[in-house]
């Protein structure tokens, strides 16, 4: 199984300590700022992100690369597809 460190990340956003919908909003802004094909990671300690972030990525038509559990937070990685 791949880990977050195997993936090339263009931009990482630290949204730890931010509440729902903060981390999702950070991800949306981060994706907007990237060119198509770019990879963004967002760090979240909000328990809502586990479902919210993949749901948004699917709805927005991007690629959900994965959610990687770290100590006290999760690193969500997505690739901008359009």
């Amino acid at each position: 199984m791949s880990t977050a460190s195997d993936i090339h990340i263009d931009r990482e956003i630290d949204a730890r300590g931010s509440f729902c919908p903060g981390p999702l909003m950070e991800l949306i802004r981060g994706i907007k700022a990237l060119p198509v094909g770019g990879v963004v990671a967002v760090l979240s300690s909000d328990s809502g992100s586990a479902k919210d972030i993949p749901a948004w990525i699917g709805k927005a038509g991007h690629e959900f690369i994965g959610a990687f559990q770290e100590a006290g937070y999760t690193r969500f990685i997505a690739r901008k597809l359009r």
Partner: protein
Amino acid sequence: MAQTSERMSLIVFSGTVDKLMAASILATGGAAMGLEVEVFLTTWGLMAFRKGDYLTNTRVSKDFEEYGPTMMEAMQAKQSPSWMENLLGAKEVGSVKVYACSMTMELYGIHLGDLEPIVDDVTGVATFVERAREGRITLFI
């Protein structure tokens, strides 16, 4: 024309911070998920959008009034964005329109210029209901 079935309509009647917070987060979620969000401000909800009012508004719902100070302190300590910041963020990521109720405006002598710039326009209830009728989600807060 936008896909009308993908519309979320929020009627914001309450002007207390707890309910405005809930409304702003729902608007954000709707906007993020690609819904066309329309917010109709009426009565105390409209009062909360008078210029600068949100900066000093610390009102909470009567049923949980004793939690008011605790809520405001927790929001400050954890640097939670205000409901106004959430709503501005919702506008930034998606389609969010904020309409003020013409009847409330008439009643209290409020003009569009007296309201926060986040308010897009003034509308009557019939227009709002007609647009909400085409939508999928309608909430009264």
